């Protein structure tokens, strides 16, 4: 697989087109809405997280940007839905997940994202070798991190 194909795996292009969680839902009693932008390229995201009983009840978002940033946000939502089940992911688990994701992406290709933990988002492993694109992949995750602090 060429470098480019490793970076832009089918899953990434699919998530970039069919964006899970796209479109903000109505805020609940414990919601935070966070706006993040990447000043280098102008990519932006508005992410809304709602918590219930110390769990992530829902995450929705809107934004514009490159396929990496769009796919990453979509994959984050898919992961939270899959792993959280009907009750939602416990907040400490979500926070730990973000931290591990950041560590892997900043590892310059040394730490892969395992599929068991990260689901579709494991396809973003290749981004870690492209330091200029790490911020693109981190955008939604940083927005969620900030949202969890506020919600």
């Amino acid at each position: 697989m060429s470098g480019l194909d490793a970076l832009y795996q089918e899953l990434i292009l699919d998530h970039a087109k069919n964006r899970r969680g796209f479109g903000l839902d109505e805020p609940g009693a414990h919601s935070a809405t966070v706006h993040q932008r990447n000043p280098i390229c102008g990519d932006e995201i508005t992410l809304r997280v709602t918590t219930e009983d110390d769990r992530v009840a829902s995450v929705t978002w809107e934004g514009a940007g490159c396929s990496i940033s769009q796919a990453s946000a979509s994959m984050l939502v898919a992961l939270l839905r899959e792993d959280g089940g009907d009750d939602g992911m416990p907040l400490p688990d979500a926070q730990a997940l973000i931290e591990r994701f950041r560590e892997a992406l900043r590892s310059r290709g040394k730490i892969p994202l395992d599929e068991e933990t990260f689901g579709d988002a494991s396809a973003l492993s290749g981004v870690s070798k492209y330091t200029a694109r790490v911020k693109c992949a981190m955008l939604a995750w940083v927005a969620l991190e900030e949202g969890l602090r506020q919600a």
Partner: protein
Amino acid sequence: MTLPFDVDVVRADFPILETEVDGHPLVYLDSGATSQKPRAVLDAERDFLSRANAAVHRGAHTLAAEATELFEDARVTVAEFVGAEPEQIVWASGATGGLNLVAGSLGYAGRLREGDEIVVTEAEHHANLIPWQELARRTGARLRHIPVREDGTLDMDAADSLIGARTKVLAFPHVSNVLGIVNPVADLVARAQAVGALTVLDACQSAPHLALDLPASGVDLAVFSGHKVYGPYGIGALWGRDEVLDALPPFTTGGSMITTVTLDEAEYLPPPQRFEAGTQPVSQAVGFAAALRWLGAQDLAAAHAHEAALERRMREGLRSIPGIRLLGDTDAAERVALQAFAVEGVHAHDVGQFLDSRGVAVRVGHHCAQPLHRRFGLTASVRASAAIHTTADEVDTFLDAVSGVRSFFGAEVAA
């Protein structure tokens, strides 16, 4: 001595052009962001530091004298490059530094007050916008802008009504770093002169491509950066008319810009030293001059024709690829070989990554011109910018790569 123009001979002067990216020969189309440096520039800096380095304008030793001579010779070279006198050339860290100096100094001088107006264009690089925003904010002056039309040219009818008795400063780019269009300097200067406004020209994108005669252009002040004209980083030039520089107070103060200093006050040197406080980037100035001498030794008329042919090849090639939207696509104005574009259905960053995998280096993003991108309904675009060393084959490699972008990303072609 002028050499007959041969792009292969020119290329041999740039060591970096031998680079390979991912097994592909580098196709460097990002000279608008920063140019590559010919060996003459690398050698000049190394020679200076190996042979003549010392503090300039002080010290009685041999090296100090030699360094001072090379430093001031560099000023002469830069002055000659723009048809000016050396006393009219102020060293700046770059165009950004020069523009902040002008705006800051005008502010210090109290030359603007509430009710006054500063006019810029919608096509400014942030470097020729934010210093004026700050000056306006601090003085109560109003910042206005000449709109850009859909074809990328300036709306000169709007300029007529915008530039009036309240206008104190008119600042504009010689060539927009996004549109590549040469703006009508003489027309703008005439309007400013009619109302007694100071004119400030951002010549960053013209200096590498067009012959400049700043005194004849009619503008009062102009800036350009060394690193965009085949020279080093950290050095640029501010040119100003004698009477304009004379009337400006220093912006940065400290050593090297004074005659007599007491504990209470200081007297300042005349321009250009008045504006050159502190240790100057001496080896960079020497390298800057080497770049301009290198450029001046080329057959510039032939180089200009070469770049004009690249410009047409690039623009016509992009036009023929489905789903490409060009910014500033006009034949109505003179242009340099720089073209920004958007690819329908694919983000600029992804386009840049795809091109990089073919060895093609372009700029992606807003190119420090967010308002202009907003005007075209975009947050980002792709920009290809050629240089004197760019070949027609490289433009074709670029075009071939661009034509593969949409199928790779699965972007549907609109009917």
